[in-house]
């Protein structure tokens, strides 16, 4: 196991380096400069701005400088757009927000998704099965940018129960609507994964034995079938994480949460190079770590899996 982890980590390092390099190259190829506004600064000021942020250095030097800062000081540099913040500030502020509502969205999605999936599996090929899967797919297919305004319309304007946006440190009434909007993105996939793996498990030998022994269906499911059926859901955590960060763009824009997804997209459009790099590296590293954790967890739960 430890050799496996060590092996994966050794691969992780060049992966992140490649990630940084690709982002660097792509960004430098993009036309436009971070200092453009409707009123372009005159050439002297542009030169000064570029000197201030080290953009006038040759590319290789910028690259090396950047790597040194990131690896040895965990310093992602200043933001090119927000003159009084560093990228570390932005990430420190935005990431916990995204993490919070992402985490709760996933929990909600797992609870509902698994429930729906199990139901569908038990009542396989009946109308209940189709209805459950249909409902899950439907809610996943409605784009977030349609769901968000509807939620605000219903809960803020008509009912007046919840505030229309903002985060204010993450009070529960600010978390609810982002969670509803985002959880529907995972919902269907989790339901379908659970359903198919549950079907497999229900057809296997040890379940047949349990049923033959006369156990009631509910005990069969809860005590025997659920754990192995949930394993594939675990491996879905990886892509779900990436999806959470991508989907958070819309959530951030509509609910003004100040999360990381919005910063990323805006920084791409503003050519805020350092913020873009910082967030890309962050997401990339976390994806790698997550995937590793999930695989380790997988092996720990299922003794048959050996690396």
């Amino acid at each position, binding site marked *: 196991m430890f050799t496996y982890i060590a092996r994966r980590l050794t691969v992780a390092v060049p992966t992140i380096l490649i990630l940084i390099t690709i982002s660097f190259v792509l960004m430098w190829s*993009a*036309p436009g400069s971070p200092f453009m506004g409707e009123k372009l600064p005159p050439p*002297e000021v542009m030169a000064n*701005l570029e000197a201030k942020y080290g953009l006038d250095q040759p590319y290789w030097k910028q690259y090396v400088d950047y790597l040194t800062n990131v690896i040895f000081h965990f310093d992602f540099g200043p933001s090119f757009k927000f003159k*009084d*913040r560093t990228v570390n500030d932005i990430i420190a502020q935005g990431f916990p927000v995204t993490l919070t509502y992402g985490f709760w969205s996933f929990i909600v999605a797992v609870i509902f998704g698994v429930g729906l999936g199990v139901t569908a599996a038990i009542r396989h090929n009946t109308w209940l099965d189709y209805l459950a899967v249909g409902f899950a797919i439907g809610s996943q297919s409605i784009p977030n940018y349609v769901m968000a305004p509807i939620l605000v*319309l219903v809960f*803020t304007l008509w009912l007046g129960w919840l505030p229309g*946006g903002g985060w204010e440190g993450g009070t529960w009434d600010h978390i609810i609507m982002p969670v509803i909007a985002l959880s529907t993105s995972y919902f269907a996939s989790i339901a379908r994964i659970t359903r198919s793996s549950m079907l497999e498990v229900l057809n296997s030998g040890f379940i047949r034995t349990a049923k033959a022994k006369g156990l009631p269906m509910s005990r069969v499911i809860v005590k025997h079938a659920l754990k192995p059926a949930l394993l594939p859901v675990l491996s879905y955590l990886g892509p779900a994480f990436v999806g959470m960060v991508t989907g958070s763009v819309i959530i951030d824009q509509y609910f003004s949460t100040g999360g990381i997804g919005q910063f990323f997209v805006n920084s791409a*459009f503003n050519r805020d190079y350092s913020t873009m790099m910082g967030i890309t590296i962050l997401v990339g590293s976390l994806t790698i770590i997550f995937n590793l954790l999930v695989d380790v967890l997988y092996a720990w739960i299922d003794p048959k899996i050996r690396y």
Partner: protein
Amino acid sequence: MKIKTTLMASTAALLVLSGAAFAASPMAGETLAADQTFTYQDIDESPSIDPGMVEDVSGSAVARNLFEGLMNQDADGNLIPGVATGYDISDDKMTYTFHLRDNAVWSNGDPVTAGDFVYAWRRAADPATASPYAWFVTDITGIKGAGAVGSGEATPDTLGVEAADDHTLVVHLERPVPFFAQTVTHATMFPVHQATVEAHGAEWTRPENIVGNGAYVLTEHVPQERMVMERNANYWNDGATIINKVVRLIINDETQAFTRWQAGELDLVGVPSGQYLALKEQYPAEIYSNPRLCTYYYNFNVRADGPAWAQDVRVRQALNLGFDRSVITEGILQAGQIPAYTFTPPTTAGFTVPVVEAAAMTQEERTAKAKALLEEAGYGADNPISLEVLYNTSEGHKSIAIAISQMWKENLGIEATINNMEWGTFLEARGAGQFEISRAGWCGDYNEASTFLDLYKSGSGYNDAGYNSAEVDALLAEAKTAEDPQPLYTQVETIAAADAPIIPIYFYTSVGARQATLKGWPDNNVENAWYARDLYKVE
């Protein structure tokens, strides 16, 4: 000359006398609400609220609340005292002496001195600060030596401004600038607390560090989410301030923002595009549309390496005439915008819009003339023009581009395609002249025609069309030193209208929705310079 001096002096005196007649002034019979919190929306976070670095309209609004300049604007855009009680102008109009009041203090108790202004202006012009608005000081204000400071040839202390004593600021200009007094209301010219900036560097605008001399102090700032400003008890005119707290929410989506306004979470919000008429019927008292000092227009690429058809003035005129501006203003925007046939808005102080033939014709006449011009130039059904309109990604720009290109297609048989780019790419393409027609908008930096007409100058960095007319250049140079530049300005507009390097489309209005309980909004201020201390809420 002498008469002029007396006039100037008495103007300054009048300003001092009228000093009391500003700030929040409730009418008789209005009961103030118990909760005086003003909540408003901005579409996006500003890059900076440091006066020396402010570059956008929303950042300037914040700066106006946290800091105060020498002079302020009243609800009609006229100058009223700020930190300065008034100013004198020398006979040759090249020296301005500002008299600062003695009771203006920073939020930490330090008195506001002339030295603070000297420091701030030098800092804004200093290349080391790398301010995106440094050009305001170096090019617009005409302060002596500013150009050399901006290009790095001279050190900032050579800037033509000095503190004669703690309460007297003397400014030396290198040429008479008729609108100089107005420029000091701009955020870039606000004072900055030297000790704070030097102690905290780039982080001095954080709530825990910031020191300002405005009516409010910054107490909370979460980027992309909210900003909270609270009453500054040390402000010299704090007694007249009614609003206690200003909350600024960043809401990217205009529809979402409007829904929240309807739910009562906001006092002031923008109106979603295209919904003005319908919402005005629904909320007649709350929806407003005020004149604004901005123009929306399309650039032709008249450079030598631009498209061939763009070199022919007849084709340009044809395109200029060949679409119905009222479709845009009354069909799409519907918020009281005014169709434009020349560049400078009619609301610009002192400016007379020249009478242009096109403005008086009916649309049928214009279309007929356009067709005739096209034929004359050799284009028609057998030799159609195909062109591309470039705009930056936005729903509003898209709708307008679609409408105009369709009208060209139907009226003139032009094969027009439209293409949008996101902001950064768009600016690069437009600035480098890689377009055939590009969309543009320009807002005046001060209330005088030259802020628009300078774009026609052949060397201007904002002359995206590449327009080059020796006649216009000469007139603009003359206007800089002329006694009365207005007739010259009008002449420039007439020439440009004939040359048609751009297609003016409409003059902006400032559109929004505000709760009926919010009062004091400066509806007549064309630069939309609002101060929270002038607002108040009623029951």
